[in-house]
């Protein structure tokens, strides 16, 4: 199969993720969309690795996964903390601005 199709898929996934981050209010969903974007990037990296016949893309994909795992841990704890204090997981409610 033509590897470029993977790139199209990657772009599609990234767009869906970005739209989700920008449009959804629920922090969990926003978070999941962030993961979607990360994975779209991973797919692009791996595809490029394949297309150029080297392992750099795959190595970076592994790094991204490690970082994403850490980020999930920290991010979820923050979301839970906010939810506990404010009884809401909406990202818009988290604004503390006075005006």
């Amino acid at each position, binding site marked *: 199969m033509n590897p470029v199709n993977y790139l199209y898929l990657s772009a599609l996934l990234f767009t869906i993720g970005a739209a989700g981050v920008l449009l959804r209010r629920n922090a969990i969903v926003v978070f999941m969309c962030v993961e979607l974007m990360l994975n779209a990037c991973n797919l692009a990296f791996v595809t490029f690795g394949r297309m150029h016949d080297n392992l750099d893309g795959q190595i970076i994909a592994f790094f991204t996964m490690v970082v994403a795992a850490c980020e999930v841990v920290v991010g979820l704890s923050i979301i839970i903390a906010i939810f506990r204090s404010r009884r809401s997981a909406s990202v818009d409610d988290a*604004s503390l601005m006075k005006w």
Partner: protein
Amino acid sequence: MIETSSLASGVVLANEGGGGLHSVAASGAYSALWLVVGLPLLGALLLLVGGKRTNAFGHILGTAMALGSFAVGVLMFVTMLGKDDADRSVDQHLWTWAPVNEFQADIGLHLDQLSVVFVLLITGVGSLIHIYSIGYMAHDENRRRFFGYLNLFVAAMLLLVLANNYLLLYAGWEGVGLASYLLIGFWQHKPSAATAAKKAFIMNRVGDFGLAVAVFLMFTTFGSFDFADVLGGSASASDGTMTAIGLMLLLAACGKSAQFPLQAWLGDAMEGPTPVSALIHAATMVTAGVYLITRSAEIFNASPDAQLAVTVVGAITVLFGAIVGCAKDDIKKALAASTMSQIGYMILAAGLGPIGYVFAIMHLVTHGFFKAGLFLGAGSVMHGMNDEVDMRRYGGLRKYMPITFVTFGLGYLSIIGFPLLSGFFSKDKIIEAAFAKGGTSGWILGAVTLLAAGLTAFYMTRVMLMTFFGKERWKEAPAGAPADWHEPHPHESPTSMTGPMILLAFGSVFAGGLFVLNESFVKWLTPVTGFSHGDLPMSEWAVTGMALSMVALGSAVAYVQYARRDVPAVAPAASLVTVAARRDLYQDAVNEGLVMRPGQYLTRLLVWFDNRGVDGFVGGLAAFIGGTSARVRKVQTGFVRSYALSMFGGTLLVVACTLMARMA
């Protein structure tokens, strides 16, 4: 090299400077010289720092310090008498104040025939006035502070006349200005006194500016502040420089000695307690200008232009003061105007050069006696008259205050130049010296001094008649008197007040005679100031005769006007000249019009410029930044998603730019 001689050992640096002042290091009895300044300074420190703890004995301590200083002064004088002319002047180097390369500021004292005269006058009259103040200020709760200030004044004045360089002289000069300010405003709860103190201080600053510039000029020209270097080098400097220094010194003298055009503060200075008026604003501080000019004789001798300016200032002031004195109803202001006029005589004489220096100082000393006596007499009268100062509310007081009457009367006879009294000799000599200047200017100055002698006789006779003779006008309540007005009960003052008045009266009577006997005063001062007879265009007897006729004329007019007729208890309407004189010849109006108003306009302009120009720019900048920030602030919405959007936007922009760079 830094000279680190200690005070106690009296080890001193011999001043070998060339020129006008040859002097040797102080040794023997002279080594106590620093005590003359030190004692009153110590008294001032104890009384002002000690605070209320010294309330009980403050007046005794202050007086003791003044008397101690006088005793040391007498010791100095006696020691000096025992030496030859050549060895009489001494220097005492105390310590080096600020040694910086070329710049040497020393604390050192210089005693010679001129300064010892001042030391005796200041400490002698000063001590008498301290004693007088014990009685006069007996009921004032701040008496201790008063004595602290008096001691401070005496110390500063002694520093002024004993300094051996112009920088230290300047320190003393400022010191007496400060003491004068503190004492004029001693009753600062009275707004008039507080204002008068400020007025005196500010007008003095104008003069002090002159002295400061003169000192700067001396340093740039001669590289030193020492009298020996400056006066010794005066022949070598250019005429222009000497004239500049001379005129600046004259400005200084005008400020401190209340000479035209800086005379306006002296009348208001009478708001201070009367002993202050007697000591500071009659006998000593206001004569500092005469000292300054006489001390700087070499500078003025080198600059005829500056000398001419000095005589002009003196001539204007001598008439100005006399005219104002003729119309004043406030006894102290009349005496203040008289002081101004008499100091005008001294300044005029000092401007005549070697012909007049000696007589300027002689008149200064006799004036110190009779004017201090007159002021103390005025204080005694006020003391017995519920602090009334309006002479129209006096009259016939001779029966009630015999001692005050006699001492005041002797001072009066002395000041108008009654034959054989102190004032007669000293004033007559100045008139002679004015004529002896020669040329047209000599005739003009002579005529001015003669005219002023007549005016002096007029206004002093007027004071005398209105106060001690005539109807007892104080018995009737004044128009618009408060409901609790009660008739004053004139009475003689206590001994502590009459004693000093009696001693000063002796000085007023005999000092002049002693000075001219055998020409002793001239011989005494000649080594310092120089002396020349000038050439008198007529005989001395003719001058004396003219002066005496002017005096007789002035007294006679005053007699006709104030003894033959009743004095109205309220000042009557009078001619334009009298009204002008009552208002000090509009000196305040002139000052306000020429200086104060333009100053206010300038200040307002600057304030406007500051508000609109400077503040406008700074404020505009702040408003611009504030406004921009307010707009930029809106970007921070607090919504995570909008931040994310801007992040996406930014990323897209970066990607687009990168792509465009690649394509190009």
